[in-house]
């Protein structure tokens, strides 16, 4: 009970800080827009590629539709925009902690009779709120660009649930780097260096069947693949429980490792 109120206090602090940075909302609008426009324009012909070796395509107009059910590339690509946005903001979660370490506010919190985990979870839950806001913005942009969400309003809620939990789990990596290195520069570069390779080595930007075979192997162990497929199915087909299950298993595994490691590092007294 005490811990819940501690988490809530810290959660509110970060929410207040977030609302006082209007620049955040601006960027969370601009970034997905740029992604949507750049990729869907440059790669739109992916939606017209026939299945290799089979002419004409049986039962589907393109390989993309055959493998994923998506009629246009933008419908397929919406999932990638969501993942990119979650991952890049999750990997900045640690920056806030580094700022607190530098400003002395962290020491103030650590001297107070509150649980260490509350300090981390208050921050993570606040980040989850901003993730949900960002996902809502992306979906609205998608709708405006003609993306239809097959699973309806419940599917949107499911997308948000996956996005929020994935964001929390993925943030753990950033928290761990931040607490170990105490450097915002390192924290930021780890974020930038992991997001792009993981995105392109997964089934986010291209159906897995169309990837070169070595990339397929990487994609199969890449958590982004499972998150992406869950999103893609919810947008293109509706509720496909298998893929939703895989996504949550991936989130659980990442979360236990990343958050467990962060809490362990944080519990040790640091100077």
């Amino acid at each position, binding site marked *: 009970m005490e811990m819940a*109120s501690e988490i809530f*206090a810290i959660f509110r602090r970060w929410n207040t800080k977030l609302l006082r940075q209007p620049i955040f909302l601006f960027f969370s609008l601009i970034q997905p827009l740029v992604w949507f426009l750049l990729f869907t324009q440059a790669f739109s012909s992916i939606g017209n590629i026939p299945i290799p070796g089979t002419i004409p395509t049986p039962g589907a107009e393109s390989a993309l539709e055959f493998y994923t059910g998506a009629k246009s590339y933008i419908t397929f690509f919406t999932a990638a925009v969501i993942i990119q946005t979650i991952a890049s903001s999750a990997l900045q979660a640690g920056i806030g902690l580094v700022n607190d370490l530098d400003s002395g506010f*962290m020491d103030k919190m650590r001297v107070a009779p509150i649980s260490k985990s509350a300090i981390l979870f208050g921050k993570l839950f606040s980040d989850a709120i901003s993730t949900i806001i960002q996902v809502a913005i992306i979906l609205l942009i998608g709708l405006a660009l003609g993306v239809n969400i097959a699973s309806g309003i419940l599917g949107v809620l499911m997308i948000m649930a996956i996005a929020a939990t994935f964001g929390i789990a993925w943030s753990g990596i950033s928290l761990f780097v931040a607490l170990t290195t105490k450097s915002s520069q390192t924290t930021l570069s780890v974020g930038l260096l992991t997001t792009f390779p993981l995105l392109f080595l997964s089934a986010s930007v291209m159906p897995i069947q169309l990837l070169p075979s070595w990339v397929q192997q990487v994609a199969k162990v890449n958590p982004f693949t499972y998150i992406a497929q869950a999103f893609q199915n919810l947008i293109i087909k509706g509720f496909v429980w298998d893929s939703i299950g895989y996504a949550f298993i991936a989130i659980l595994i990442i979360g236990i490792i990343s958050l467990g490691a962060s809490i362990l590092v944080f519990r040790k007294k640091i100077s």
Partner: protein
Amino acid sequence: MDNIIVVENLSKTYGKDIVAVNEISFQVQKGEIFGFLGPNGAGKSTTIKILTTLLEKSSGKATIDGLDIDADQSKVRRIIGYCSQEVGVDDDLTARENLMLQCRFHHIPKDKALNKINELLQKVRLTEAADRRLKTFSGGMRKRLDLASSLVSDPEVLFLDEPTTGLDPQSRQDVWGYVKQLNKQGMTIFLTTQYMEEADRLADRLCIVDQGKIVAEGKPNELKAKVGADKITLWFKAGDIEACEKAVKALSNLQGVDEVGKCVEGFTTEEGLVIMAKNGSAVVTQVVRALDEAGIDLEQLKLTAPSLDEVFLKLTGKTLNVIERKEAVRRGRRGMRS
């Protein structure tokens, strides 16, 4: 008097050979202001961080109000307040929000918290700025808020790590006022400082620390009496090193003079020639007479009672703080003071 802080053979080492705190032992009595005076890198912050449960000690033992800082860590946190050197406040929040956050950290019920916050804001004269974000605050205002935020839980012991470093003179006076006031109301205060004036003005008792060790402990007056010498400083016409050398010769064998300093480069402008004497006020006339007899032109003379700075110099062979020393000299030059 009861001891509220008891430290025994406390050490902190980093890696294999960096010893930040070296086997220190001391006690702080309930209700006193206890100072830790020393230069940067003496181990002051390390000690305060260990006592406030922020940093793991390497060896030794420390208790606060009978509670072990390791075994009873969470209980210790309930009875202490801490102001770090960095000023731990959130710049995106208002003063009131910062205090509310601290109240929540200490699980103070809301109605009680609201009263407490108003009371604290008034105490540190921030009532009018209460709903402004800290981005617009001056350094002194931030420090005052920081102080207030460490008081929300009415701690038994307040730890202040260099509370006035980087503050302007007025803000420094303010902080000193609050510290004295809190102490009058019964709060035990442990503070670290690199300013001897601060230690002298505030501390009931103090430890002088250098390179992780306590080199002296006692009341400021006791410590000053230990050095037991007044300081006479002489200035000659700018650049007149010859006059200085002659003065050293003339004064070396003078009755009552314990020690004559050296003529160093730049002596005429800043440091002057320093003479130590047990009974300075009696010796000073003889010094003037001796210089007169030797035909040396004296520009200025200053007589100072022993300060903690001299105690420190004597014990460690180093000066505490060069900038502050220069300020003191400039102030002193306005006239002869005792």
